[in-house]
């Protein structure tokens, strides 16, 4: 029992730090609220979807930027998609970079776009890491027989 309480405390602290650092925002809390008995793995599912989608998009983005004549419209469309996904799960920092990226698309600055892409990837992996840690913690608690504390 002691273990569970410790783990729960660790989880809460971790989540709080994520929010404080601006990695996740309120939308993530909303997602967690949608999780209930009929939908127990909702958050994990959505986040996994996000990971898959994002990685696909990164490939697309890289491909598009590689072209001779960069199709900025297409670029914009992809970034738009990424922005939508990240905002849907509350990955705040990723979303912000997407907005920046779109601005550069509008002014058709390839250099900046490339830089943005890099930054995007960095942020993405960062949040992915954090989220995976989070899920691991939750799984540990579940296995120890406790319940995920609701924030």
């Amino acid at each position, binding site marked *: 029992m002691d273990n569970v309480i410790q783990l729960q405390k660790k989880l809460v602290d971790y989540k709080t730090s994520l929010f404080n650092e601006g990695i996740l925002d*309120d939308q993530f809390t*909303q*997602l967690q609220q949608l999780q209930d008995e009929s939908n127990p793995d909702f958050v994990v599912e959505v986040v996994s979807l*996000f990971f898959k989608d994002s990685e696909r998009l990164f490939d697309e983005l890289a491909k598009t930027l590689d072209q001779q004549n960069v199709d900025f*419209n297409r670029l914009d469309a992809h970034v738009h998609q990424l922005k939508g996904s990240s905002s849907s*799960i509350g990955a705040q920092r990723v979303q912000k970079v997407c907005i920046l990226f779109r601005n550069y698309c509008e002014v058709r600055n390839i250099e900046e776009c490339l830089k943005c892409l890099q930054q995007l990837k960095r942020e993405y992996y960062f949040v992915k890491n954090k989220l995976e840690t989070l899920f691991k913690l939750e799984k540990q608690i579940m296995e120890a027989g406790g319940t995920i504390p609701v924030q």
Partner: protein
Amino acid sequence: MESCNCIEPQWPADELLMKYQYISDFFIALAYFSIPLELIYFVKKSAVFPYRWVLVQFGAFIVLCGATHLINLWTFSMHSRTVAIVMTTSKVLTAVVSCATALMLVHIIPDLLSVKTRELFLKNKAAELDREMGLIRTQEETGRHVRMLTHEIRSTLDRHTILKTTLVELGRTLALEECALWMPTRTGLELQLSYTLRQQNPVGYTVPIQLPVISQVFTSNHAVKISPNCPVARLRPLAGKYMPGEVVAVRVPLLHLSNFQINDWPELSTKRYALMVLMLPSDSARQWHVHELELVEVVADQVAVALSHAAILEESMRARDLLMDQNIALDVARREAETAIRARNDFLAVMNHEMRTPMHAIIALSSLLQETELTPEQRLMVETILKSSNLLATLINDVLDLSRLEDGSLQLQLGTFNLHAVFKEVLNLIKPIASVKKLLVALNLAPDLPEYAVGDEKRLMQTLLNVVGNAVKFTKEGNISITAFVAKSESLRDSRAPEFFPVPSDSHFYLRVQVKDSGSGISPQDIPKSFTKFAQNQSIATRNSNGSGLGLAICKRFVNLMEGHIWIESEGLGKGCTAIFIVKLGIPESLNESKLSFMPKMSGPQTNFTGLKVVVMDDNGVSRSVTKGLLVHLGCDVMTVGSSEECLRVVSQEHKVVFMDVGLPGMDGYDLAIHIHQKFTRRHERPLIVALTGNTDKVTKENCMRVGMDGVILKPVSLEKMRSVLLDLLEHRVLFEAI
């Protein structure tokens, strides 16, 4: 015989003289003996003679005198010594008795004299008593007559009968020749002959009231003897040489109703008198006696009282008749008013239907027209048509509402609602206009204001919106503040509404809302007009603002229905204006506490969307999942599609709402909306189309409206927002979030 002194009675010489002496003595003796006998006889007869002893004495004296004279008869001739002794004895006795009698008489004669005096005195007394008795008898008779007269007079309340009876009875009692009553005319300047005893129909004799004889009578409250020749007494043609009888006149005060004061007796300083003239028979040489005059005066007073009673009765009968007439007139008027109201209601009912049908056609067809292919000019025209017809529809509704309100046929639809949400909604609705005019709108809800209340949410919002809208409308710059709090009893009483006595209780509270603006203000004399229908505040500054003037009138009626009060305070033109209203709302029963902590507030009975079929169209998988998750959590039956074509294929009548993501790239979402409109021609078959977008610009919203979407929601959508969106959508069928 020796010489004796006695004279020898010699018959021869003086025989004649002797003879005469002899005879006289005899007769004297006889008289002397008979007188006492008579005396005794009469004394015996009379019972009251007090001095019998004296009579006996006197009798004895006379008898003795008689005896003496009788014995004297024997002394003429030779008489013996015995005779002489007897003679001497009788003389002596006689002397004694006569002396005694003389002495006695000295005593009794004064007595006898005084008896006479007393007798005279008694006779006088008797005469006086007789006189007095006569007087009393006449007085008693007078009293009887007065009583009888009064009885006759007072036995009727009819004026004519009273007066006639008076004259008749007086005539009979006093045996008058003529009796007449002169009444003052309306002008008060003349006396008119109104009633007479003998003449049947006195025709219009009038005398001026200023005659000296009349003034003399009027100034005295006694009956006054007047000359038979004065005009009031000359009622009959003079019948030649007969001496007219004495005439007496008396005043009869006519008491006016206005002289009656409830607490005092009526003062007799009335100005109006009538004149009663009584004439004794012409040749009877009768005179007016004092008691008769008194009788006349008393009767005159009684007549005055009886007349005033009759007058009062007449007055009240007249008033009653008047009231009855008024009642009848009022009844007729009421029936007419009812008929008018019924006619108006029928008219309104018919016009309601007749007016709404074409309106409906215009609005519906214009909206449909909007969804077709139009050139920009055409679109502009159709939009204007729609806007105007919406305005007209609102006006029709307002007028109908108002007439229903006035009939009292409007009833509040009570329900539990979120009070805070009402204010926020109003704020949201007013913010766009306010920001265009660069006005600051501040909402201040008191901390003790309950979150939920029982009442008519729609009408409360309508009232609030109207009041706030007015504030915004009439303010060109500055700020508007809306304050809402629970009214405590001190703040409930307002001097402007003294008949408003709100009493808070355990199940109700009074909500007080104050909307203060820094606008053009209203001058104090215009404030009462603000709530009258169609009365516009005609200041120049507000001339160009539109509005039919019905808004505040409707608000007032709603507030009254909610058992509250609404008023406006303003310090004058240019000093801003504060609209305040207080309404009575119910306190809902305590909500389910456990659910509150997990799920955000329940805002009403309709939170059950179980089985609600919806379609989510989003080409972004992640956001698609998230939206689906939201809707599934609310209990909906969600179908997800990734493209417009798929959506069109899948969507059917069963789906109530289609959530589609409209991102910037491409016009997919818009086309989809148009296609859906084409697929479902009838409005009630078509699912509601709601756009989810992260774009905050106006263009997106306008595009959505243009293609006929029913709503636009800004992403990200929280659970709470999705829930309220669904609620609103399903209730109102339209939702355009303020951007």
